[in-house]
C-alpha cells in the first residue's frame, strides 16, 4: 500500500518534470528539470531495492551529466536566458512520432509477461554486480570502456584548436 503510494508520487514527479523540461522555454530551467527527472529515476531504483544503481544514477546522471550539460549551456549562451529554448516549428510531426512511440511502448509494457521475484533482496548488491561485470558481461564491459575512451579522445580533438601552419 505505502509502496504503491510512494511509487505513484515518484512517478508523477519524474514524468512531470520531464514534461516541463520539454515545454520550458528557458534552457537552463530545462537542464535543472532534467536533473529532477534523473533523481526521480534514482528514487524508483531505491524502491526496487537497487541501492547501488540508485547511487550510480545520482552520481553519474545528476552529479556529472547535468553539470556538463549546464557547463555547455553556460559557455555557449547568448543574450537572454528566457528565450533560449524555442519550440520547434515541426511540432505536428513530432507529436505524431511521439504518439506512435507511446503507443508502441504501452503495447510492449502491457504484452510483456513481467517475472516476479520472490527472493529476499540482496544484502550486498555491489559484489554481485561486480562479479557479473567481470565474468559474464566482461566483453560488453570492456567494449563500453573502449567506446568511452574513443569518445573522450574525439571530444579533445574537436575542442582543440587547429594551429594554423606558420
Amino acid at each position, binding site marked *: 500500500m505505502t509502496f504503491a503510494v510512494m511509487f505513484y508520487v515518484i512517478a508523477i514527479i519524474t514524468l512531470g518534470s520531464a514534461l516541463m523540461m520539454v515545454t520550458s522555454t528557458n534552457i537552463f530551467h530545462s537542464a535543472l528539470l532534467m536533473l529532477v527527472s534523473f533523481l526521480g529515476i534514482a528514487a524508483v531504483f531505491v524502491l526496487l531495492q537497487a541501492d547501488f544503481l540508485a547511487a550510480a544514477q545520482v552520481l553519474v546522471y545528476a552529479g556529472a551529466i547535468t553539470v556538463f550539460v549546464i557547463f555547455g549551456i553556460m*559557455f*555557449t*549562451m*547568448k543574450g537572454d536566458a528566457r528565450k533560449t529554448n524555442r519550440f520547434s516549428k515541426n511540432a505536428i510531426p513530432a507529436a505524431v512520432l511521439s504518439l506512435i512511440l507511446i503507443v508502441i511502448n504501452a503495447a510492449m509494457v502491457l504484452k510483456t509477461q513481467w517475472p516476479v521475484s520472490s527472493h529476499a533482496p540482496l544484502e550486498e548488491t555491489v559484489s554481485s554486480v561486480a562479479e557479473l561485470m567481470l565474468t559474464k558481461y566482461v566483453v560488453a564491459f570492456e567494449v563500453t570502456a573502449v567506446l568511452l575512451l574513443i569518445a573522450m579522445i574525439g571530444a579533445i580533438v*574537436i*575542442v582543440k*584548436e*587547429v594551429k594554423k601552419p606558420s
Partner: protein
Amino acid sequence: MIRTEEMKLNFGPHHPSTHGVYRAVFTLEGEYITHCVNHLGYLHRGIEKLAESKTYNQFIPYNGRLDYVSGMMNEAAYVQAVEELMGISDQIPERAQYIRVIMSELQRIASHLVFYASMALDMAGSTPWFYGFRDRDRILDLFEMAAGNRMMPNYMRIGGVAADLNEEFLPTLRKLLDDMPKCIEEYNGILTGNEIFQARTIGVAPLSGEKALNYGMSGPSARASGIDYDLRRDEPYGIYDRFKFNVPVTQNGDTFDRYLVRLLEIEESVRILEQAYRDLSEGPVMAKVPKVIKPPAGEIFYRIEHSKGHFGFHIVSDGSNKPYRLRIYSPCFVNVAPFEEMAVGLHMQDAIATFASLDIILGEIDR
C-alpha cells in the same frame, strides 16, 4: 571550431582588489583577458587646481592626500622643490636633513609593507597582511610621535621640519631597527618561499626593460625590469650622497621580481636608517625663512626617489606667494599605464596579482 562567447567585465571601480577606485574593463575569453582598458579619475579632487589658490605653506597638508601611504615622502619632495626654487636648499640645517632622510626611509618601508600586505591579500593570503601591518603600525607610531599624525603627517616645512624629535623617538626607532631583520625574515618565510606564490608570480606578465623605459616607468617597478636607475644614488638630492646602500635590480621584470625588488629595498632602507641614526647630530631643525614664502619668478622640475618611483613637482612661480602652476608628476599615474598591455593574455587571477605588483595608490593617480 567551437567558439566561446567573449565577455566584458568591469574590474572596479568598487572591486576588492583595485586598491581604491580604479576601474579596468576586461574583455574575457573564458577567464583569459584579451583586451583591457584603464579608466581613471574616480578619486580626482583637482589638487593641481587647488594649489593655485593656496600659498606655498598652505599646500603642504595636501601632499599627504596624494599618495596616502607615503605622506612624508610627498611632503619632502614638495618642500625640497620649493627650497630649490627659492635657492635656499643649502641653508637647511643638518639635523633637519637627517630627520627628512629618516622619515623618508621609514615611510618607504611603511609603503613597501603596505605593498607586501596587499599583494599577499590579492592572492588570498590574508595572514601576511597582518605581518606587514604589524610593523607598519610601529612606523606609524613613530610618525605620530614626531608629527602628531599617522598618515597625513604635515611634518615637513619649507626650510626644515615642523618640530624636533621628542625624546622617545630615537629609542623606539632603535628598537624597530633591531627588530627589522627578524621581521624581514618572517616576510620571506611566509610568502616569498611559498610554492603557490611562486607558481603564481614567476614568469607572469614580464615587462621588458625597453618597454618599461618607453612607458616612462620608474622606481621599483622599473628596477624589476633591469633599469638600474635610482635617484638617491644617481642624482643625489638632499644628503643622500652621504649614505652607503645598494640599489636592488632584477632582470626578469615579472610579477615576482617586482615583489622581490621591494622586499630587498626594505633591507636597504634599514641600512640607510642605521647610518642616519648613527650620524644624527644635535642642532636646529628649521632654517631662517621668510614668513611669507615668495619664490622668485621662474620654474623648476624637481624629482625625488619616492617609494613608487620618481615623484616630482613642476612648479611655475610668478613671484607671488602662490604657485602660478603646480604640476604633480606622479609615478603611479605613469606606472599604471602599461597595465593595459600587460594584462592581455593573462588569466584574471594573474592580472590581479600583476596589478598588485605595480603598487598603485589611487590618491596619487587621480590627484
